[in-house]
């Protein structure tokens, strides 16, 4: 039953984007470009919610800085996309426009890999992964827990945001990267590319889901849950909680980076606002609304909250933040296990 549901869900996500290509515009089965883009975005958000749930729902570690890993992945991909513009920019030079604007004559050293998709993808995973490993190691070794951990992760992403806002940092300042033209020589706005990116996001979500399921059902996952419930006991059983928390945190950061890598070519822009505290807090809301400590919950939560957001931004744009706040309060008060918990309760 569960397996059948999973296969059906995966099939829908994988096949839906093809409706854009298979049917001509105007046909009732045609999925417009707008909805392909929206689906792609939601799939990336769902990966983030799943990643956050892995450490929050199962490990009891609430990170309010996961937007940073998402943005670093996105910037990594963005660097490659900027180089792919080639001489088609405003200034028609080899350097990206913002560098010309700053009067730079050559690429900074950290752009060295940006001409190669493979090398740049490696960087887009390695930088957030390493940052999570170093930051997490210090935080977990010092036994920073609970709200203190949430606060310092929040501070970390704000610090990074301020750094990326500076023009001299070399990532386009507050405008970030935009105006992308192609990926691997192929035009980025073609219908085929849009569908390909959307399908890639669906594959990424399915793979992340399966990895998360395998991890949480392994002994590693049970120890992670044990750390959440009684860390002292785990230590006195001879396990070192640091290793488990750190591996969970790094895996989670890598999933977020993957989401960022897929997100940027689909929305066509990355700027420091992705590192704002609100962006990271929203991820926590997706996971909470869907249901912490379940794997399906965060995915549903990301779709539900962002779907509602899309409706409200058309209907009543000023009202969205109030609705989001009310939703979060309602879930915290009445649905501690989120939508999935509600469904379970209704079935009984």
């Amino acid at each position: 039953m569960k397996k059948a549901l999973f296969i059906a869900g995966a099939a829908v996500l994988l096949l839906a984007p093809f409706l854009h290509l298979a049917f001509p515009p105007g046909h009732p089965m045609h999925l417009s470009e707008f909805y392909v883009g929206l689906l792609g975005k939601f799939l990336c958000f769902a990966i983030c919610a799943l990643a956050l749930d892995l450490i929050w729902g199962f490990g009891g570690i609430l990170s309010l800085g996961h937007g940073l890993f998402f943005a670093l992945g996105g910037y990594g991909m963005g660097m490659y996309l900027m180089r792919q513009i080639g001489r088609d920019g405003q200034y028609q030079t080899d350097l990206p426009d913002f560098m010309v604007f700053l009067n730079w004559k050559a690429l900074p050293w950290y752009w060295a890999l940006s001409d190669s998709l493979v090398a740049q993808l490696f960087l887009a995973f390695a930088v957030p992964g390493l940052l999570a490993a170093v930051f997490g190691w210090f935080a977990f070794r010092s036994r920073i827990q609970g709200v203190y951990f949430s606060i310092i992760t929040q501070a970390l992403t704000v610090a990074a945001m301020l750094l990326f806002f500076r023009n001299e940092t070399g990532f386009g300042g507050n405008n970030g990267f935009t105006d992308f033209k192609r990926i691997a020589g192929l035009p980025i706005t073609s219908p085929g590319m849009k569908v390909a990116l959307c399908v890639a996001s669906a594959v990424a979500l399915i793979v992340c889901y399966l990895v998360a399921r395998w991890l949480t059902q392994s002994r590693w996952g049970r120890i992670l849950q044990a750390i959440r419930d009684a860390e002292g006991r785990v230590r006195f059983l001879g396990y070192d909680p640091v290793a488990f928390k750190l591996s969970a945190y790094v895996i989670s950061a890598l999933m977020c980076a993957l989401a960022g890598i897929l997100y940027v070519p689909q929305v066509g822009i990355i700027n420091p606002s992705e590192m704002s505290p609100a962006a990271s807090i929203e991820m926590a809301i997706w996971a909470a609304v869907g249901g912490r400590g379940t794997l399906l919950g965060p995915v549903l939560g990301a779709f539900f909250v962002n779907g509602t957001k899309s409706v409200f931004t058309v209907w009543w744009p000023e009202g969205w933040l109030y609705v989001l706040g009310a939703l979060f309060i309602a879930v915290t008060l009445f649905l501690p296990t989120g939508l999935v918990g509600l469904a379970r309760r209704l079935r009984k």
Partner: protein
Amino acid sequence: MTPGLLEAGAEAHARALTRIATAGEPVFNQGVALYVEDIKVAFDGFQALAGLSFTVGVGELRCVIGPNGAGKTTTMDCITGKTRPDSGRLHFGSNLDLLTMTEAEIARAGIGRKFQKPTVFEALTVTENLELALAGDRRARFAMRARLSGEQRDRLDELLKTVHLAPERERVAGLLSHGQKQWLEIGMLLAQDPKLLLLDEPVAGMTDEETERTAELFLSLEGQHSLVVVEHDMAFVGTLAGADRTVTVLHEGQTLAEGTMATVQSDEKVIEVYLGR
């Protein structure tokens, strides 16, 4: 080879065995499992332990009693690495210096602890709780691919029977009764197969029947494991100590008296501070 050389070799080997190590297996070549020597701990000026010393022999069952605030739990905290004493020495076997080891290293060296408040993993089932405690590789990498071997399955079944939780094996631990949680925690302790068991008020909240069974269980462990039982319940201590086992009485962070239950009960200082005048 000359007898002199042989002797020198044997001595060097003995020295190597008892060299103070900071990790690994304890060596019990002196017949002593745990040395506690002149431990002092102060919390914000309150002297919780004021030069506490005692030793526990290999395979011994030792009862520790004392009024509230005598330092019983603090002693356990020091031995397991949760609290670092201000001064003193703590050795496990003749070679391990517990003061330089982390909680996890101490646990891996073979010291298991039962908390005063039963601490089990409430979201996991009874079997899963025991499985995590089973002796084995403790690294995160290993845990991702770990599978139970047939031998471990048998051991789990045996443990479930020992702690009378076989009918509850698939139940979530959070749903167990207080006494059952105590049993589960004892089961987890046994699953670790520790050389030294520290039991902090193991029968608190148990029914009389459960208490009796617990006493039987501990007595059956004597000899294979060293046990330190900290308890308030005098009847329980009486059952455990019997006529000839040693009881240590703590008071204000020091050893007040040590001896058989009868000796301790007739000690005037003990009567004054603990057993009531």
